Every structure is written in structure tokens, then in C-alpha cells.
């Protein structure tokens, strides 16, 4: 929800790097991004955390 709220505030083409300790987010965020037609830039696991980078497309 924080990602979605933040996406509303940023400019088109801007990217957000979500830092999450939740494995579910690493699966759910890409699914959501595809559904609502934003763009996944990348997803990396770093220790217990995931970096999930999303680009605002609309």
C-alpha cells in the first residue's frame, strides 16, 4: 500500500526502490506491477531483504 500511495506522488518515469523483508512482497509486487501496467526494473535479494525496483509508467 505504501508503494501504491508513493507511486501516485512521483513523476512519470521515476523509479522506486522498495526495501522489504517479506518474501510475499517479492512475489506480489511484480504481479501487481504487471497487472496495472507499470514496469519492473529489477528485483534483488540482499541478505534478509529484497530490493524491488518499480518504474512509474502511467
Amino acid at each position, binding site marked *: *500500500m505504501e508503494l501504491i500511495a508513493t507511486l501516485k506522488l512521483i513523476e512519470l518515469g521515476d523509479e522506486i526502490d522498495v526495501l522489504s523483508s517479506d518474501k510475499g512482497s517479492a512475489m506480489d509486487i511484480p504481479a*501487481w506491477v504487471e497487472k*496495472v501496467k507499470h514496469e519492473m526494473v529489477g528485483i534483488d535479494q540482499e541478505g534478509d531483504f529484497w530490493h524491488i525496483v518499480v518504474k512509474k509508467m502511467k
Partner: protein
Amino acid sequence: MSSPPLFILLCSGEHEKIQMAAMTASVAAVSDRAVEVFVSMNALAVFRKDVEGQRYSGGEFSKVMQQRNVPDAIELFGQGKMLGEMKVYACSMAMDVAGIEIEDLVEDLVDDAGGLTKFLADAESGQLIVF
């Protein structure tokens, strides 16, 4: 192609079911899906503005959720409404029976009182889930 709207019939007063309904409604709403929620029976009291004591009661999982501070169900519905397209209706029959007025329910969340007949007719255009 836009997704068919989602209709949620929420009757249970059980925390687990209300939480699941809140998650389903908010995720659908922020995924470009219109959502209508119809609140009736034991669920209605959970949407009261002023709740004496704890708002949620349920089983084992409810206890775990309250210890772990999961996002509050009423707030989740609110976020879905704010970030997506969601309408919440309180069942006019249940309000009558329980003596609850629209002013008694959480502000900016419950849009209006509504009837089951209208809700069911609207739900023909989409998918209906019952909690």
C-alpha cells in the same frame, strides 16, 4: 480490457473474515478493479465509529494478528477507497434491526445505506465473494 467489478458481501463479525475481506477489497481496488462492499449482520457492528472495548474478536489467528500488529482492517478498507475505486454500503435491513444510524458508522468509509436487492442486481455485472 478492464476487469469485471468485484462485489463483497460481508456478514461475519469474525476478525479473520473481516481482515480477509479488507485485504481482498483493497488489493482489488488498487489493481484497477472497481469494488463494492455490502456490510450486514454481525459485520455491521465492527464498522461502528465508537466501539466499546476491542473492535475485533475472533479465533487463534485473530490473536496472532493483534500481537503482530498487522494493518487494521478498517484502515485497509480506507486505503483501498483512497487509492482505488471502492464503495461501501451498510445493509439498511441490518441497520434497522440493530438500531444503527449511518452517522454511527466509521466516517468517510461507509458511503451510504443500501438494500440487498440493489446490491445483488449490481453484482450480476461482476464477481461476488461472501465473507
